[in-house]
């Protein structure tokens, strides 16, 4: 009886781990898509509405998909309420967002680079910066999508089969 209970536990645990890793591969493109959408909204606020940055970020935070909007909400809050630079405000936003472990470290870098120049660049240069950032995120999204296709199913099977392998070895 105990033996079968152990088998069940090992199988459930390894399958769960496999599904958890597969979920991260599935989630990452969705999150990058969210960042990309937020970036387009920010561009719209800056280029067409010519909103000052704190108000633009606030507006993006209201319209962007969750959980990316939290990034912009925290940055807007920091700019409106404290005496911080734009880079620090974006870093605070990223820190509030870092608990989403599906994103890789490099996924934040493009936006943080944009934060370094956004406050001191005129509109025509900012358009180029936005174009570059959007292209970079589209590249990141394509790679993430590829990885998802390759690894999502693999990890699901790997979890379950890995569990079975452990059971066979132990028995």
């Amino acid at each position, binding site marked *: 009886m105990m033996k079968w209970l152990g088998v069940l536990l090992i199988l459930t645990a390894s399958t769960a781990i496999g599904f958890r890793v597969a979920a991260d591969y599935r989630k990452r493109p969705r999150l990058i898509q969210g960042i990309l959408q937020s970036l387009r909204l920010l561009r719209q606020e*800056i280029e067409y509405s*010519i909103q*000052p940055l704190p108000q633009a970020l606030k507006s993006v935070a209201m319209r962007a998909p969750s959980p990316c909007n939290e990034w912009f909400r925290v940055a807007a809050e920091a700019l409106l309420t404290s005496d911080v630079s734009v880079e620090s405000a974006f870093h605070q936003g990223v820190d509030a967002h870092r608990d989403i472990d599906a994103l890789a470290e490099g996924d934040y870098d493009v936006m943080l680079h944009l934060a370094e120049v956004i406050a001191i660049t*005129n509109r025509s240069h900012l358009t180029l910066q936005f174009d570059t950032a959007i292209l970079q995120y589209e590249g990141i999204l394509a790679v993430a999508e590829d990885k998802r296709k390759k690894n999502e199913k693999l990890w699901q099977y790997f979890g379950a089969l890995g569990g079975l392998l452990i059971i066979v070895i132990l028995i």
Partner: protein
Amino acid sequence: VQKKEALRSSSIRMWQQALLVCPPDIESRIHRLPEPLLNQMEELRFRLGQPLQVCGQEVEGFLHKTAGLTTHPEEALVVTAEHLARVVQVITQSSLYAVEDELRRGFITMQGGHRVGVAGRVLLQENGWVKTIRSITSVNVRIAKEHIGAANPLLPYLYRKLDGRPYSVLFLSSPQCGKTTLLRDVARQWSCNRVRVGKSVKVSIIDERSEISGCLDGIPQFDLGPRTDVLDACPKAEGMLMAIRSLSPDIVVTDEIGRKDDRDAVLEATHAGVSVLTTAHAGSLQEWRNRPFMSELFEARAFSRYILLSRRHGPGTVESVLDESGRPLMEQRAAGKGMDVP
């Protein structure tokens, strides 16, 4: 006493607002300056690698490293790149792109109507016009002063006694004599129905440089009264015609006329039965008449009153009020004062 107290508290409010742009170490030093000196402060000039200059009525000096003001640059607090970056960040709200149009004109209006002039490397468009200013190395924070009631002594000269119709008035002086401050107060007094009680007047302000209304995002930062419409950042001549066509004003207010287009717009307004309140840079009526296009306005009697100002007893000292043919109606008394005692 009440008036003086109100003026004092208004003055404190104005410079406290302007000090928000200063980095914390500079702000705390300025806050420690004596209050009479703070009330006289008109400009804070930040120049990269140079001492911070404080200018104003009977005030001129550099902010000392420890406390107070000094006339010796070597004892003064030097403006660093970090100081300047912080000032630029505050005045642009971290958004240089949002103030590009203002930068093209060389200044940014901040909350409270304070005007921040900037200098640095100018970038040109292909047609040779100024595109923007980058690498900002100098910032001049001009503290706006709102003197409510400054125009009180002038009110009897501003309307026709017979029917109370507002006169077209031109304020003349060299720069920094309080033309715009008086113009703003006259506009407000008309709008508040205080020039001639019972005479309700609609006022349209064409504020090409956001100086009369101190607009921030189109919202006037000064009290302009309940019957005032503001066309912010609108070219004078075009704006005057737009206002006449669409806002049905009794008075059109604008600042610093001097070009051919301005002359045409003023004539258009006066022929349309709309009074014009405006200003021009000139030391005397004759100097103004000698300027191109302006003598035609005088000959057409476009203005019924000319008010000459100076800084003799402080900004806003009324030297004389002249009628449409240049005859004096009021002369400055020897003991007369400027705006500090409205």
